[in-house]
């Protein structure tokens, strides 16, 4: 399943098939939860594995470590599939969140100057249970979100990408671009707010 990307100043076009992709993900998840369907898990990670690995490697994670982290996430999807509720979050958000938290956890474990009991660290690292939280969007809304990002102006898309894809904090962006911190904040915030109000309009249309 591929999302076609056409040039729109580096932006991406919404996928027409995203709604069926959502249903497909949800069916796979329920197959895993109900009868331990290994094929469904494989299919999910044929699609999402390379995306997650790409996200990690773009942050400077090495090939081997990136795969170790994706493997941990894949096992968590297996053991936690019954907790996934497609009405409460999209699979993309669910799996992204697990990967992001794994990555932070990895930095924590490898960024310490003091060495603690390695066995203890293993226990701490393993106890995070994935959960689909109520606050996230349903899969359907997440699909609309993708379309709405593609509809933002180029400058707004750039600000969103700067915040979410360049892997830098606002302060780092400010230091690198030479833009005052206030300007960086304002640009990112106004792009996010534009996206929010567009989403709100879509929401009204749906209700």
């Amino acid at each position: 399943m591929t999302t076609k990307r056409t040039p729109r100043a580096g932006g991406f076009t919404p996928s027409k098939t995203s709604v069926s992709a959502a249903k497909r993900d949800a069916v796979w998840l329920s197959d895993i939860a109900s009868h331990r369907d290994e094929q469904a898990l494989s299919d999910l990670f044929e699609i999402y594995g390379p995306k997650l690995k790409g996200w990690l490697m773009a942050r400077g994670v090495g090939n081997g470590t990136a795969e170790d982290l994706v493997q941990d996430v894949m096992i968590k999807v297996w053991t936690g599939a019954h907790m996934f509720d497609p009405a409460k979050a999209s699979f993309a958000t669910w799996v992204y969140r697990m990967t992001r938290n794994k990555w932070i956890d990895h930095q924590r474990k490898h960024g310490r100057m003091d060495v603690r009991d390695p066995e203890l660290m293993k226990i701490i690292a393993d106890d995070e249970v994935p959960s689909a939280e109520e606050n996230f969007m349903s899969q359907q809304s997440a699909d609309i979100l993708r379309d709405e990002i593609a509809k933002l102006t180029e400058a707004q898309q750039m600000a969103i990408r700067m915040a979410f894809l360049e892997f830098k904090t606002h302060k780092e962006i400010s230091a690198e671009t030479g833009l005052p911190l206030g300007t960086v904040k304002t640009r990112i915030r106004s792009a996010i707010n534009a996206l929010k109000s567009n989403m709100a309009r879509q929401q009204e249309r749906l209700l």
Partner: protein
Amino acid sequence: MNAQFHTVEPYESLVLPDWDEAITDYAAGNLSPAKHAIIACLVELNPKAAKKSAFETDVAATLMAATQEVPLSLFFIEETLAKLPYCASILKAANDCSKPGPTPKPLRDLMDGQGLRDIVWKSFIPGVAIHNVLGDRRTRFGERLYLLRIKGGMPMPEHSHIGEEWALILKGGYMSEGQHYARGDLHFADATMVHSPKIDIGEDCICLVMTEGPLKMKNWLTKIIQKLVGI
């Protein structure tokens, strides 16, 4: 199917200016482990922060799906399938629904499952105790993450900071620079501020604190004790 957006509203009543930006960096996965832990706890305690974080995590996930894919190695899927645990452990995970308590889950995860009532506190000065969360000394990022428990009615010793200080209030509350902070509030202080928060009378105050560098205590005695407990 009901479109389950979290309601979209402007952040008109935000008192804390840096909170907004920290959530974006959190959602994108850009924060250091100590700051990430603070914001993860904030999101659990503060409904407004939760709303913003949920929306921006959706955005980040959408963009993740659009980043450059890197193919998995040839036998990745097969190797992972071979490592899948049996049903027994799946059932265990299902029962592992820990109830929400006074200790936010991200914090409990960092403390080996312990809650605020289980941990051992180290006395700092009379009325003030600390518990280190991320190591006894500084992390690679130069940050410390610790819990601070201060007796009700006490003023914190006057101090300033080398870098930023983020304090998330978990229990009780205090006044600082004319503003009141209570459970679920996040208090930012930067290197330019000298402050001495005054704890509310009656209840002890517990905060989860991240400092980028050691605190600069005004008083020489507190300076020495500070060296001993390592904050």
